[in-house]
């Protein structure tokens, strides 16, 4: 089993960004880009589904970004980044051929192998789809090991959806029960309109024998978790990925503490029962 850098907390290796070259860049939405990266020299980082890397825009700062690659085939790192702050704007401005710093992989992994034999339900909001993508590809590669394969994807508008062609390809090729929804559409939009929670009651899964994997802004995950619980999916079967301000990535600085847990070290993947009480506390 590969050792993650979290397990070597405090080492020089864990704290030193490795130079990675941007080998491909694609604009997904008006403020979101997907990058492919490969090491300038040395062995590449080999992440697992659910893990994140710290990406460093030299001279600007570092941010944690989930791995979004298809680990079944991609040798390069894949990260989808939304330009919302100084660091992410600097990263999104990086052109093909330029170099950024990468530390990782950090954090725990999606317990996707624990869902073998069960239905799997992926719920993504906005750019919450990329962090789920490695786990989705794991299910695709091992499709016969899993039951029904449900993907519910919501976004503000159709143009805010990422990887949409790929998602529709999964539906065609891998027997995915796909349901798409946007807050606001236009008359060309062929999917549903409303909140992503609207997709949960009719979703085709057996709540007695399923696991859910949910990524999106925290407020979205809260409502989705409640919707899944209303379908009688147990809280311990609902997996989410938390986001907190991170600095070190190895559980030393404490910036990402929530209750008794450090998200960079113990997460970012949690089950709903592990964190629901803490997420209900204001300003925690």
């Amino acid at each position: 089993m590969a050792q993650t850098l979290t397990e070597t907390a405090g080492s020089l290796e864990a704290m030193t960004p490795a130079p990675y070259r941007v080998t491909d860049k694609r604009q997904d939405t008006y403020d979101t880009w997907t990058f492919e990266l490969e090491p300038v020299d040395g062995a590449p980082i080999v992440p697992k589904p659910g893990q994140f890397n710290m990406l460093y825009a030299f001279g600007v700062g570092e941010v944690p970004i989930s791995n979004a690659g298809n680990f079944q085939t991609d040798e390069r790192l894949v990260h989808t980044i939304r330009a919302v702050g100084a660091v992410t704007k600097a990263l999104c401005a990086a052109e093909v051929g330029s170099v950024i710093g990468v530390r990782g992989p950090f954090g725990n992994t999606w317990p996707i192998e624990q869902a073998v034999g069960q239905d799997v339900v992926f719920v993504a909001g906005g750019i919450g789809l990329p962090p789920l993508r490695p786990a989705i590809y794991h299910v695709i590669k091992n499709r016969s090991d899993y039951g029904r394969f449900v993907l519910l994807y919501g976004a503000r508008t159709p143009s805010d959806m990422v990887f949409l062609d790929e998602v529709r390809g999964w539906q065609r090729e891998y027997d995915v029960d796909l349901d798409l929804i946007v807050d606001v559409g236009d008359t060309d939009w062929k999917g549903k309109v409303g909140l992503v929670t609207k997709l949960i009651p009719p979703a085709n899964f057996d709540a007695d024998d399923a696991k859910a994997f949910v990524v999106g802004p925290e407020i979205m995950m809260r409502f989705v978790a409640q919707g899944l619980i209303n379908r009688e999916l147990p809280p311990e079967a609902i997996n989410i990925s938390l986001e907190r301000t991170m600095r070190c990535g190895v559980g030393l600085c404490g910036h990402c503490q929530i209750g008794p847990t450090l998200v960079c070290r113990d997460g970012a993947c949690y089950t709903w029962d592990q964190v629901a009480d803490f997420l209900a506390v204001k300003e925690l």
Partner: protein
Amino acid sequence: MKTLDTVIAESPVFAGLTQEQLEFIAGCAQNVHFEAGEHIAKRGDAADAFYLIRIGEIALDVDVPNKKPVRIDTVEAGQVLGWSWLIPPYQWNYDVTATELVRAVSFDGACIRDKCASDTVLGFALLMRFSQVIVGRLQATRLRLLDIYGTDTH
């Protein structure tokens, strides 16, 4: 083949009504269907009906000057479309279009209102049920005001 009162009874909206009340309501109902793209109502039209969607999907659109119409909601199988029939001035507030083949039960709004006026127990029962539909839409709208996808994620 199911009778209309049986179909109506299977909808959560009408759950708990007595058989007599269901038959009463079914007297104001008929099966209808709409082809994909067919307009069901236009904003400002008399809201003389509401629908229990059995199959298919319906879109609610708003015209925006110099832009494409904005699709603000969709109503899917199992849900009820329309509550303007209940509240004056009994007019549709949005353009309503079938986005695919729709099979539905159509209820005559004036007929139901008359029955509710003459049978206040039924009237209260229906008002309670439609209040839930309206509150559900209101809560969904409030959640959408939160722009739940708008905050940053990974």
